[in-house]
């Protein structure tokens, strides 16, 4: 500022009506607007003229949908106004079109939509709300973030009718005991096979200080190598570990849940007598030798009776079994000599078969309850129409991936299945005890990213970091297959 200027002189530098004069800047701005509009019009005409295509896309499709990259109408509907004088689309029509497009491949049910309150039914539930595509090739469309779930699950009472499942908590906002609660399906063991996990984990499957340990030589000959540890001879004790009976497998309920749950390792193979029990617990008819077969497991009793009859008769014919009337003996008795054989060794009386059958049933009852070994129960089991005696899945409302946790010691989650030094001897069976850890075994690792690692976890993965996502979708699936009630 010059020292000699007055205030009036300074104000006169700018004309007082300067805003009434259109200068170059004005004309430049207008030109740009017109040019922009023209360009937009030309681009719109070009897009409309060429059918839109990628010009309307917000980004590349995920790799799973890449084949539709240039075929927008597979998912999208041409603009169709409600009426000739209306410039508005019908939301229901639009959503249903997109959903129908998705369901051409992904035939899934809605997620309890029938339970939603009226207000929530009007909320847009287009598939793309959770599975937004056009986010790039590497986009994981199943990666649904927790807030999408907690929209409803933070307070179900405001979203659903009162007719909702009692096992689902009303307010879940975090994965911890307080908010999420413990796993409801682990409250009781529906299994009906009597079994003692601890005893089977002991060397020789006997309690310390007990006799009668199982040795390799006592196993079925064809199964010895399956159970023999490195360097073991036939007289060494059979030592089992979890993998002796529990092998990775796909989801046994794969027919009612989405693909992906069938991945090897996500679940464990169902326990089967023939694969997991028979090496030690074969069903032996009287006189069974190494050269003869055991009786089949879970066959109708009429069939077992017939097999028993033929096996006993066969062993008598071979001379390895004796008829009741056979009093032959290797050393002659003074006066009586060597005795005499039975006239017809192939005759096995009904009483013999009946008693052998009942003796077999007593063996069955060591593991089964009486209701499970009736002919009716056996036949329905063979037909696959009965509930498995051992649950194929334990976490009925969530999924678990054993393979993902393979580096962990099984004892971390299944401590009760192992021998306990404080316990002098095993209980007769533990089939009513759930041996799967609760949510407290999950939350130390599956925690919010900003929560520090709890103490005592450093050895869990040999010093590696233990943080794991606490996303809802790690364990839960939103959809079911069509017609399947979760």
């Amino acid at each position: 500022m010059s020292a000699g200027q007055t205030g009036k002189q300074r104000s006169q530098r700018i004309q007082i009506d300067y805003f009434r004069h259109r200068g170059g800047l004005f004309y430049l701005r207008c030109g740009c607007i017109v040019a922009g509009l023209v360009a937009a019009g030309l681009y719109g005409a070009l897009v409309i003229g060429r059918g839109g295509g990628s010009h309307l896309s917000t980004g590349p499709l995920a790799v799973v949908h890449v084949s539709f990259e240039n075929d927008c109408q597979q998912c999208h509907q041409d603009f169709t106004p409600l009426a000739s004088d209306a410039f508005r689309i019908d939301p229901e029509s639009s959503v249903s079109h997109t959903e129908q497009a998705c369901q051409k491949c992904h035939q899934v049910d809605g997620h309890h939509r029938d339970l939603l309150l009226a207000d929530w039914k009007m909320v847009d539930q287009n598939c793309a709300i959770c599975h937004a595509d056009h986010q790039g090739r590497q986009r994981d469309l199943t990666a649904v973030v927790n807030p999408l779930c907690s929209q409803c699950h933070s307070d179900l009472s405001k979203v659903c009718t009162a007719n909702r499942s009692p096992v689902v908590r009303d307010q879940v906002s975090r994965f911890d005991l307080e908010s999420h609660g413990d796993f409801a399906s682990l409250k009781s063991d529906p299994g009906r096979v009597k079994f003692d996990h601890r005893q089977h984990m002991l060397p020789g499957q006997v309690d310390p200080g007990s006799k009668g340990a199982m040795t390799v030589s006592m196993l079925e000959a064809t199964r010895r190598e399956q159970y023999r540890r490195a360097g073991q001879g036939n007289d060494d004790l059979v030592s089992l570990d979890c993998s002796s009976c529990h092998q990775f497998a796909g989801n046994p309920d794969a027919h009612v849940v989405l693909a992906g749950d069938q991945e090897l390792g996500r679940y464990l193979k169902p326990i089967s007598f023939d694969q997991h029990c028979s090496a030690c617990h074969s069903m032996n008819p009287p006189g069974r030798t190494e050269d003869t077969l055991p009786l089949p497991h879970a066959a109708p009793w009429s069939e077992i009776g017939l097999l028993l009859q033929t096996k006993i008769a066969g062993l008598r014919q071979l001379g390895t079994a004796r008829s009741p009337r056979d009093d032959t003996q290797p050393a002659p008795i003074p006066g009586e000599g060597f005795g005499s054989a039975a006239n017809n060794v192939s005759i096995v009386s009904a009483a013999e078969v009946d008693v052998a059958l009942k003796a077999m049933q007593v063996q069955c009852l060591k593991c089964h309850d009486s209701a499970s070994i009736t002919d009716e129960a056996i036949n329905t089991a063979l037909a696959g129409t009965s509930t498995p005696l051992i649950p194929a899945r334990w976490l009925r409302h969530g999924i678990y991936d054993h393979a993902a946790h393979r580096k962990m010691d099984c004892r971390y989650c299944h401590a009760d299945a192992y021998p306990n030094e404080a316990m002098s001897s095993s209980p007769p069976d533990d089939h009513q005890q759930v041996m799967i850890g609760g949510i407290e075994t999950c939350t130390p690792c599956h925690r919010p990213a900003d929560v520090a690692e709890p103490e005592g976890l450093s050895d869990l993965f040999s010093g590696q970091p233990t943080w794991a996502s606490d996303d809802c979708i790690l364990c839960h699936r939103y959809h079911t297959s069509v017609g399947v009630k979760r």
Partner: protein
Amino acid sequence: MKCNPGLCCVSPPDFGRLVIQLMIFVSSIFIIFGEAVADGQESPLVGRASCAASTCHGGAVDRGPAWNHALTKWLAQDPHAGAGLLLRDEDSRAIVTALEPQAADSKEIFDQVLRKRCISCHTTATASECKSDQRLTDALLARGVSCESCHGAARSWLAAHVQSDWQGSQRFQPQTGLLDTESVIGRADGCLRCHVGSRREDGLIRDMNHDLIAAGHPALRFDLLLYNENLPSHWDESGTVEQAFDESALRVRSVGRASSLSAAAALSGQRAADHQSDPGVPWPELSDYDCFACHQSLSISEYRLPASEKNRSPLRISDGLPIWNAWHTIGQKELSRKNLQALSPQRIGAKAMAAAASNVSSQYRQQAINHEKATFDPQSVIEQLRSVLQDSPPRDWHEAAIQYLSADAAVRDLKSKQSTLREQLEPLLRFNRDANENTLYQSPAKFDPNEFQKAMLDALTSRPPGDVAVTSAAEVPTITDQP
């Protein structure tokens, strides 16, 4: 109340049928293996099904240790397994109907006879099962003479027997309930409860008396060594327990004979004592005495031992007088004439006989104990036999049979691999020497003492020299005939 088809897997009629099936099934299990509860009290028997798991004693034969397939092998090969079912065959039916003619027309009476007279030995049964008036199930008979008959009622030791400190002879203390099958005396005792009989053991009456023999049951002539050899082993034949049996056949035979005599004397005493309180118990009990003393041929030409030739039979065996238990007493030199006379019913009453029998039983019990610790010289036994036979032929079939058994044991102890003693001598002792002869009766009528004497001397003389030297025992059992 409505049944919700979505919640219930079977319709109501099906459900009712299922419940009934279950009830029948469960009750059949308890009836068939109904050793658990009898008369409101828990039975001491647990039943053989309790042992039959493949990881316990029901494994495949010849797989793993012997204990693992003991029951499987026993079921297939041991004649005791089928002993109960024998009671349903035609021979048994003939015996029962001979005992009780009404049994021919009444299944109830038939079963009553089996319960009262037979199942105590032919099955593993409790006293209440023997006394019951109910029909006899095939299932009870099919138990046979199973584990707990020889090893003792298992409820008292079932849990203990799997403990690693369940070792040694302390297992056989009376309070454990486990019976001794490992010592020679113990194993003999197990057999003798039925193969001689008892009216006291286990609260059961196991008395195979003259009535049963007359009805057709074979007479009992138990020999521990032979019976043990004939029993299909469901134990470890190479184990230390069997070494005592393999070490000396003479010891086993001597212990067995002393034990048998002790048991026979005890049974005679029990019969006499029971007769005093219950006149329905036969006394004199003729099965206590030598069958062939009375059952001789009525043909004069075949009457081998007339009473006039008393000097041929110092023990008066087979001379028409009822001599007490010839099978057990032949050659038992410690059995005094006084005791033998005390056991003869023509000389003594029931009360005195009960006391005398008790003394004899105790005496031979002690002798069995002594023999189990003794050492035996097979060579001297053979020499004694040869000496006796060179003097005279055996007086009767009993003496010949015992001489044969002694020689058989001695030859076994000499480990002579080429012995043909059995092949040479045993056929001469057969009751039915003509294989084509179908006779109902067991009679040594065709036994020829002179033929036997010659064959025995030939066999003992032609036998290769013994290759095992056995230290002479302080007490060597002999086959001498003077009491």
